[in-house]
C-alpha cells in the first residue's frame, strides 16, 4: 500500500509540474532570453503586451464563436436524442459506435463531405459537423435514467407537448448532466487541432491552429509562447475550476454501469 501511495504521489507531481509551469511561463521576464536561461525567475507582464498583433485575440474570437455554437447544438440536439432513446427509439447502438470513432481518423472523407457541401474555409466547417456529439447523448441518457417516469406521464396528461416536456420538465432535472456535458463538449471542441488547420485557413484559425503555428514560427520567444499558451488555456482552466466536482461526478456515474 505504501508503494502504491508513493507511485501515486510521484505521478501526481509529474502531472502537476507542466500545469504549474504553464501558468508561470507566461510571466517569464525577457532577461531569460537574453541570458539564454529559462531558469531565470521573475515576474513580468510584458509578454501579454507582445501578444498584440500576433492574431491571438482574433483566433480567440473565432474559437469562442465556433465552440459556443457547437456546444449549444450538442446540448439541444443531444437532449432530444437522449429523450427519444429513453422513449424506445433504437439509436443507442449507433451512438456507441460513433463514441469509439474519433474524428481524427475520418479527416479524409470528412474533407470531401465538406467540399461537396461548400463548407471548406467557412465558419460552418467548424460548427455544423459538431452540432451533435455521441458523448453528450450518452451522458444525458445516463442522467435520464434518474428521471421518474410518472413526472413525464403526468405532464403528458396535462396536455404538454413533447418539446415543452423536454424543455421545462426534463432539462431542469438534468442540470448536473447538462453542465458537465457542456464543459466536456466545450473542451473537446476548443481542443481540436488538426481539424481546423485542415478545413479552414488563416482568418478562420482557431486558438489551437494559431498556437501550433506560433510554436513553429516563433519557437525561441519563450515568454510570448508562455503567455499565448496561458491565454488559450484560460477559458478551460476557469470552467474546470468552477465545475470540476460536477464533471467528475457525472463522468464517474456514466461509467459505473
Amino acid at each position: 500500500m505504501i508503494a502504491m501511495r508513493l507511485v501515486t504521489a510521484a505521478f501526481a507531481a509529474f502531472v502537476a509540474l507542466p500545469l504549474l509551469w504553464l501558468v508561470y511561463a507566461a510571466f517569464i521576464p525577457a532577461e531569460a532570453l537574453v541570458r539564454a536561461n529559462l531558469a531565470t525567475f521573475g515576474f513580468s507582464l510584458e509578454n501579454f503586451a507582445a501578444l498584440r498583433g500576433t492574431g491571438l485575440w482574433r483566433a480567440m474570437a473565432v474559437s469562442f464563436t465556433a465552440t459556443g455554437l457547437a456546444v449549444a447544438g450538442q446540448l439541444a440536439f443531444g437532449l432530444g436524442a437522449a429523450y427519444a432513446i429513453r422513449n424506445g427509439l433504437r439509436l443507442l447502438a449507433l451512438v456507441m459506435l460513433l463514441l469509439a470513432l474519433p474524428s481524427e481518423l475520418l479527416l479524409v472523407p470528412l474533407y470531401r463531405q465538406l467540399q461537396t457541401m461548400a463548407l471548406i474555409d467557412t465558419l460552418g466547417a467548424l460548427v455544423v459537423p459538431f452540432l451533435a456529439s455521441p458523448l453528450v447523448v450518452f451522458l444525458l441518457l445516463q442522467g435520464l435514467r434518474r428521471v421518474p417516469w410518472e413526472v413525464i406521464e403526468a405532464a403528458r396528461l396535462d396536455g404538454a407537448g413533447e418539446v415543452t416536456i423536454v424543455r421545462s420538465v426534463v432539462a431542469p432535472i438534468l442540470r448536473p448532466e447538462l453542465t458537465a456535458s457542456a464543459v466536456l463538449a466545450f473542451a473537446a471542441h476548443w481542443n481540436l487541432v488538426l481539424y481546423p488547420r485542415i478545413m479552414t485557413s488563416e482568418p478562420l484559425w482557431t486558438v489551437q491552429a494559431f498556437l501550433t503555428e506560433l510554436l513553429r514560427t516563433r519557437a525561441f520567444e519563450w515568454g510570448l509562447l508562455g503567455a499565448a499558451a496561458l491565454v488559450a488555456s484560460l477559458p478551460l482552466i476557469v470552467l474546470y475550476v468552477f465545475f470540476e466536482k460536477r464533471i467528475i461526478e457525472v463522468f464517474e456515474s456514466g461509467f459505473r454501469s
Partner: protein
Amino acid sequence: MIRGVRTRAHLLALPATLVFAVFSLLPLLSVLRFATWRWSGTTDPLPVGAANLVRLLSDEALWASLGTTALFAAMALPAFLTLSLVIALAIEGVRYERAIKALLFAPGLITVGGSAIAWYLLYNPDFGLIPELTGLVLPWTSQPWAALIYVVLFTLWQQTGYGVLVTSAALRGIPRDVKEAARVDGATEGEVRRLIVLPMLGPTMLFLTIIGTVFSLQSYTAVYLLTRGGPFGSTRVLGYYLYETAFERYQLGYGAAITLFVLVITLVVAYLQARVLARRGASEATT
C-alpha cells in the same frame, strides 16, 4: 394516443441523427469509394480501381509506421493500465481522493496546444527548465528512442486521469458486503484486494485495454504537436502517417486507403483482444 406520443418523442432525435448520418456514417462508408480515387483534394478525383489498395501492400513506410504504432502501444498501454489501477486503489477512500482525481483529469481538458508549449519549454534538451536545473536530459529532439518515450510520457500525462476515473467508478460499484464477508471470514486486506477486488475489475480493465488500443492505433495529435513524426520517422504512428500522406503530400485518395487499413486493423485487434481477454476471464472464473 400512446403511439402518437411516442412517435412525436422519437422525432426529437431527428436533428442529432441527421448530423451523425451526414458527418460520421456517410464519411465512414464513403471511405471505400474514395479509396479507389487518385485525388489531390483540389482537382477532380480520378478513379484508379484497386491501385491504392495494392500500393498499401508494398508501402514500406506504412508497415514501418505500423511497427512504430505497435511499439508505442506496447510501451504506453501497460503503463496506462497499471497506473490507472494502482492510483485508483491507492486513493480509494483517502482524504485527498477528490483533489487527486481533479488534478489527474485536468491535463485531458486543458488546451492541448498550451500543454505542448508547456512541455516544450519544460523538457527541451537545449534550454528546457528541467535540463537547466537538474541536468537530466531526455534527448527527444535528436534520438529516435527518446522521442518515442517523450510522446508516450505526454500521452500518459494527458490520459491517465481518464483511466483512474473509470477504474475508480468500477471500484465503487463493488458491493461493500462482499468485501465485508471476506474480512469476517478472516481474509487480510491484501487477500481481499487480490482475490475479490481485482477479479471484479476484469471487465473494466478489458474496456480500458480496448479503448487504449483503439486510441493508440488512431490518434496522433500528440505526435503532431510534439515531434511531427521525427526524428527519422521514429514517432510516425499510423494516424500521423495518414495525416502526412493526405494533407501534407496531398494524396487524399491514398489517404482514404490508409484510413480503411487503420479501420480494419482496429477492428481485428479489438475483436481479438475482446476474445482472448474474455476467454481468459472465463477460465479463471472456473478454476
